[in-house]
């Protein structure tokens, strides 16, 4: 009886310390918004993606969670008059069994890339446009959960005339995101 209890205490201590550390210093989830090209042309589509890093030991729920009571991960983008959100592409979660679940749950761990496709308007004037969005999640580790939270995001979309060539950037991210 003593050994499992000691083990339990140690396990609880270790997760709780990690919980405290996660809360006290770095956030559990960090997210940034990146584009597939250095700029966009009028009347075109442009790929963008949110790269979220989930702290070690934690997971966030799949956009389509395994159980209906779980809070899904979501990317919400505020469209502009000349920039519409055509699509948001969520990755497939990984199945993992937790101490609190009867069966495996589909979750995101480590680096999560959520892709999006933006439609740039025909009559948009060249210039910089700030798109706002929000990456919402609810994180847990094996023994406890943190309250639902969100990371506010701002993407500066640079629009250039059609005769200005575009340079691809962040290709490693977009290979993972499978944004088509």
């Amino acid at each position, binding site marked *: 009886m003593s050994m499992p209890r000691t083990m*339990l205490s140690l396990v609880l201590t270790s997760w709780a310390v990690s919980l405290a550390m996660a809360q006290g210093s770095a956030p559990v989830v960090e997210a940034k918004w990146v584009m597939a090209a250095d700029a966009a042309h009028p009347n075109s589509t442009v790929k963008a993606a949110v790269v979220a890093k989930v702290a070690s030991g934690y997971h966030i729920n799949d956009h389509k969670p395994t159980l209906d009571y*779980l809070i899904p991960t979501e990317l919400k983008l505020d469209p502009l008059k000349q920039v519409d959100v055509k699509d948001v592409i969520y990755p497939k979660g990984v199945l993992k069994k937790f101490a609190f679940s009867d069966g495996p749950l589909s979750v995101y761990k480590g680096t999560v890339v959520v892709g999006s496709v933006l439609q740039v308007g025909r009559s948009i004037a060249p210039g910089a446009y700030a798109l706002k969005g929000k990456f919402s999640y609810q994180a847990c580790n094996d023994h406890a*959960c943190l309250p639902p939270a969100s990371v506010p995001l701002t993407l500066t979309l640079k629009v250039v005339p059609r005769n200005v060539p575009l340079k691809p950037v962040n290709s490693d991210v977009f290979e993972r995101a499978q944004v088509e």
Partner: protein
Amino acid sequence: MDEQSGVQVPAANGTGQGGQAQETPPPPERAGASKGKVLMGAVLALALVVGLYFVNRFWITPAVKIQAKPSKEHPSAPDFSLADISGKKLNLSDYRGKVLMLDFWATWCGPCRIEIPGFIELQNHYASQGFAVVGVSMDDSVEPVVEFYRQFHMNYPVALGDARLEELYGGIIGLPTTFLIGRDGRIYAKHEGATDISVFEDEIKQLLALPPDKEAVNFQQEGFLRTRGGQIELGDPAEIDSEVPGVNLSNLTAEQKEAFKKLLAGQQCPCGCKFSLLKCRQVDRQCGISRKLAREQLDKLVAKGT
């Protein structure tokens, strides 16, 4: 002693171990067997002592030392009054004299959900001895809580919590967070994360053994206790209920309070909220940046004596 079995039995002459047979020196050929008996006896005695230790440690409710004086180690549980999910008033003070388990949880929290059946069992088993469970749900709305309550046949009251209650209880970092409050109204244990029900049960037994007016000084919590210097941290009501949340204004005069608020209203908060320091404090109580700056401003104001 029966040599075959090693079990103590009455001697054939009826004298037993203390009779004449003991006074007769053993024949030389039996001396080795006698040493073996001594060794066997020592091993058995040792096994008995070790066995008794473990029985006492884990199966018998430990004797609890008590003291009448309050200690910082076991602070008084902050009082609160909420409406439970059926609309009935739920006051912490109504539980004085009982051992209370106060569970902060949410329906969206898997580790919280697995604890609930165990809490229902504890409520069933120990309620007659003066034990009660109260759930504080941190869900945003009551509907999923009501549904969960029915689905799981919960047998103890549940109320929706709020930010003030979280702060009063020292900030609820993660869920579940469960407090055990003694009959004397003190917090004896704080468990963060899903905890084995046997751990709670051991602690409940210890606390049920206490009189309502004495503090258990040697109460032992198992698992991790989120403390500073071995103490359970609670929020300060003077800061929580302040006009500038997070800053204790109780020592200021009405004029000083107004001057302080005006000062904060005139300064931009650098946290990114685009509000003044005052507004940030009022709308985002968790913002550590505006809290720190507001406290610094208060210190300056007090130092100036204005």
